[in-house]
């Protein structure tokens, strides 16, 4: 671009006084199949200079669309059909090409979900960062120097090394730092972050969020922070807007919105999050129904169809934004009855019988010395290393760990989808199980079923729901003819799948319904144990709650045991009787849920618990982990966690792998630090473990 000193455009001088970002009455439409569909309706909000504004909402609510509209990067079939968007007081929509480019170069930057994809795979990282300075007119060498500086400022310890690498050579966390550095390089007045940490592991996420907070203070940049995660928004933002079906239904200071919601949707959303204070296995609250398709609500409140408070007026009259004067700052709610929002009736399944069957005398399934080594591009990758696990009938074992920890591998080995390395021993009811499912007896196949993470993958999209379930009933349950039909009805009812969905194909169902089909299928043969591999991670919180409730309910009725895999400690805490913590394919800690969560626990468990942002206490001190998760192809010697352990005690951690040590009956920890020391350290340093747990 031209480097001649041109006088600032009129808009720019004026900008100092203006807000960083203003949206007024913005409608965004996409042209799909020769018809306009309004994805975003009448959205107005502003981000003040230096302020951090959060946009929160479930998938499909239009969050990202708004972000892209702000930088004028909508897909070709999309357009802002009404309203006005201003950045630093300049009308973004009316800028010509050169001005738009200048705006993007100087005033606004964006960071999005997948850092791996945000960088050009075939250009050195250093060049990509330096490019920002070159656009601003710096010569190449100076641009590289400044790139090095900015990388150092995002706390990359070896900026030179990083600059000489290609994106694929860096970890996700590192990449996101680079992307953030690039975004901040031009010192923009507005930084848009679109789910910047969603693709990252919990410990890394926490790190990046901290970084963003720090940088924000340092640069004084305004933030538009977009996330589906209420806790993250709560932690990061001053103000928050709640989006539902393309409308901003509630807006206000973060603490006020989350602490005293004034829209039934916000209320429902908050209630559906599993909480520590919700009591063990108290049923979660859900929001009935699902998101309307864009443009399907012509009149009335977009949430009316799902709202327990909805009245005639709600369906007839589109509510305006009601200003709420409660002394908590400027806030509003798009609800006719915002005053009564919190009286939204509780919607939940009946609380199950809290009497738990935890017959631990005889383990139902027992795995001993399970190792799994993969061959990946000539390297041996230890997916699992000497894992022992027992699950009793009717019990729920939670399996937690970050990516690469071996959670899914363990599940697949138990299911017989992956053969473990020789030497492993898996028994069911004391009988040895064949390593692969194909070789197992029909009874064993029946006894062990799974609910996969992603129902789109798990359900054959060419088969109808009826066929999907019937086949399992025939194959696993041995049902035929009339009996099969009867059982199908009963099963569908027990997973709360209305009969009208039976002829449909999976693609015609919502995510929650699909998962219900998957669950019905898993229960078709009256299994003794069901592995749930992150069954709700692809779902929105309100749907997740319903699925979790269903699983709990089924467990009580069918007396089935669960191996529940999740990266979300909140969910595990809600469900699990016992918790197993995996790190790099090794069990680091195993024990009764309460005991594991309360501690003293393994330093890794401690860090995991501490990393999860919560709505309850957003300003506690966090255990910060150094570095990245090591590669399973090249695990560290000694304690696998020693490279990142904040409580490393010395040489022994680097050289000797610790044994499992009994901390309390049934609670074992793989750590060199004596239990008493752990207890002392964990109660003294940082937030109390008990306070940090859960969401």
């Amino acid at each position, binding site marked *: *671009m031209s480097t001649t000193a041109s006088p600032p455009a009129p808009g720019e001088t004026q900008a100092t006084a203006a807000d960083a970002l203003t949206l007024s009455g913005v409608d965004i439409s996409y042209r799909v199949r020769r018809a306009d569909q309004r994805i975003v309706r009448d959205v107005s909000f502003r981000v003040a200079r230096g302020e951090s504004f959060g946009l929160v909402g479930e998938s499909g609510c239009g969050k990202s669309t708004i972000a892209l509209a702000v930088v004028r990067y909508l897909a070709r079939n999309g357009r802002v059909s009404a309203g006005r968007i201003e950045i630093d007081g300049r009308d973004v929509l009316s800028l010509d090409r050169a001005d738009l480019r200048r705006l993007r*170069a*100087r005033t*606004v930057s964006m960071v999005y979900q997948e850092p791996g994809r*945000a960088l050009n795979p*075939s250009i050195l990282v250093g060049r990509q960062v330096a490019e920002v300075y070159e*656009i601003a007119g710096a010569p190449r060498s100076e641009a590289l120097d400044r790139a090095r500086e900015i990388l150092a400022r995002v706390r990359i310890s070896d900026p030179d090394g990083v600059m000489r690498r290609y994106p694929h050579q860096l970890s996700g966390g590192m990449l996101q730092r680079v992307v953030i550095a690039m975004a901040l390089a031009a010192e923009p007045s507005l930084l848009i972050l679109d789910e910047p940490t969603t693709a990252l592991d919990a410990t890394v996420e926490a790190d990046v969020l901290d970084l963003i907070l720090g940088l924000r203070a340092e640069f004084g940049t305004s933030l538009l922070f977009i996330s589906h995660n209420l806790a993250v928004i709560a932690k990061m933002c001053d103000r928050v807007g709640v989006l539902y079906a393309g409308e901003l239904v509630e807006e206000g200071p973060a603490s006020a919105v989350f602490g005293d919601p004034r829209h039934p949707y916000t209320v429902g959303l908050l209630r559906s999050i599993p909480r520590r204070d919700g009591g063990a296995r108290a049923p979660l609250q859900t929001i009935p129904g699902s998101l309307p398709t864009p443009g399907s609500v012509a009149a009335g409140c977009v949430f009316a169809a799902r709202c327990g408070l909805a009245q005639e007026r709600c369906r007839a009259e589109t509510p305006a934004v009601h200003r709420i004067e409660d002394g908590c700052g400027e806030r509003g709610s798009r609800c006719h009855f915002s005053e009564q929002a919190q009286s939204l009736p509780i919607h939940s399944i009946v609380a199950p019988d809290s009497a738990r069957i935890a017959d631990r005398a005889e383990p139902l399934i027992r795995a001993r010395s399970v190792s799994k080594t993969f061959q990946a591009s000539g390297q041996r990758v230890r997916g699992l290393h000497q894992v022992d696990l027992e699950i009793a009938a009717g019990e729920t074992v939670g399996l937690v760990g970050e990516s690469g920890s071996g959670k899914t591998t363990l599940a697949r080995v138990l299911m017989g989808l992956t053969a473990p390395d020789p030497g492993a021993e898996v028994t069911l009811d004391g009988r040895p199980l064949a390593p692969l499912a194909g070789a197992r007896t029909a009874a064993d196949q029946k006894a062990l079923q799974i609910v996969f993470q992603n129902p789109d993958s798990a359900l054959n999209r060419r088969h109808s729901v009826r066929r999907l379930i019937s086949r399992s009933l025939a194959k696993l349950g041995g049902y035929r003819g009339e009996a099969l039909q009867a059982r199908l009805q009963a099963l569908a009812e027990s997973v709360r799948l209305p009969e009208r969905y039976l002829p449909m194909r999976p693609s015609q169902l919502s995510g929650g319904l699909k998962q219900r089909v998957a669950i019905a299928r898993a229960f078709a043969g009256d299994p003794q144990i069901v592995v749930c591999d992150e069954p709700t991670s692809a779902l929105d919180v309100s749907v997740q709650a319903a699925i979790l409730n269903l699983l709990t309910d089924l467990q009580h009725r069918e007396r089935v045991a669960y191996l529940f895999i999740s990266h979300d400690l909140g969910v595990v805490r809600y469900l699990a009787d016992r918790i197993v913590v995996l790190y790099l394919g090794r069990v680091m800690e195993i024990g009764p849920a309460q005991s594991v969560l309360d501690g003293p626990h393994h330093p890794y468990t401690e860090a995991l618990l501490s990393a999860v942002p919560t709505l309850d206490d957003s300003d506690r001190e966090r255990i910060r982990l150094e570095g990245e998760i090591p590669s399973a192809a090249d695990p560290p010697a000694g304690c696998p966690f020693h490279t990142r352990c904040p409580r490393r005690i010395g040489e022994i951690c680097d050289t000797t792998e610790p044994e499992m040590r009994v901390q309390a009956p049934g609670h074992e920890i793989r750590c060199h630090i004596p239990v008493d020391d752990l207890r002392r350290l964990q109660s003294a340093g940082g937030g109390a473990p008990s306070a940090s747990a859960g969401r």
Partner: protein
Amino acid sequence: MAGFVLKRLGLGLITLWLLSLLVFFAGQVLPGDPARAILGPLAAPSAVAALARQLGTNQPVIDQYGTWVGHLLTGNLGTSYQYQAPIAPLLGKALGNSLELALVAFVMVVPIGILGGVIAALNVGRRVDRVISVFGLSATVIPEVVSGIVLILVFGLWLNVLPIQAAWPPGAGLGTQIYHLIMPAIPLALILFGYIQQMARAGTVEALASDYARTATLKGLPRGVMIRRHILRNSLLPTITVIATQTGYLIGGLVLVETLFHYQGIGTLIYNAATSKDFPMLEAGVLVIGAAYMVATLAADMLYTLLNPRLRLRGVE
């Protein structure tokens, strides 16, 4: 990288061996008799028998194959039944001719194809895109016979601006040679244009929709710079593979074009070998084409790897 190349070469050898077997068995059911084909139908049976003895075609087929493989392993492509001459020089000359024709086609089409693909991608959904893409798609499926005939009619006979036969007069300079190869190269180029254009378009469309393209745009890079620096490098990678794999097609297409434009290339050679049951020539020709195809794909893969840091640095990190 070395390991990768070695492995590929090993697999390639197995494939070539399979290929030689396939041709060999197909050759067994080819009608006719080499000695008879050489002497003509009216030759006396005693003469045919004598020639068959000379050629060794009266021996069991397995022995023939064994002899042939034995020669091959010592670098001897054998002797053509038909020409009673060592195959290597004949094949070499024909291959040279074919490569010259293929080269002219490539030089014509690669820049135009890539340009067409990129222009279409930058205007995706617009009229320019539709025109280029429909043309490209159509060009790909029109047999060389058809395009060749139309070219002969229009440029050779009606406008009379291009020679309608590929064979140039003896002693012709490079310029004349290329002049003679222009028209035969066009049908090949037309077909390749479709492939290259579609691939370049798809690659560019994908790159344009990528997050890194968004990053680059949102950095405020001018569009031209963004396309040059961020899009083309990534979008043209798959095109390279397509170009290389089309070498195989090219040689197949040559059979037609060489026939239509009367050119002495490897296509004609193989065609004649197949129809006159010149088994050593057929085997050698097929293996050369197979090897050329494999070398081309290997070269493409290596180039792809070299240009793609993700693959190049695999195992380093």
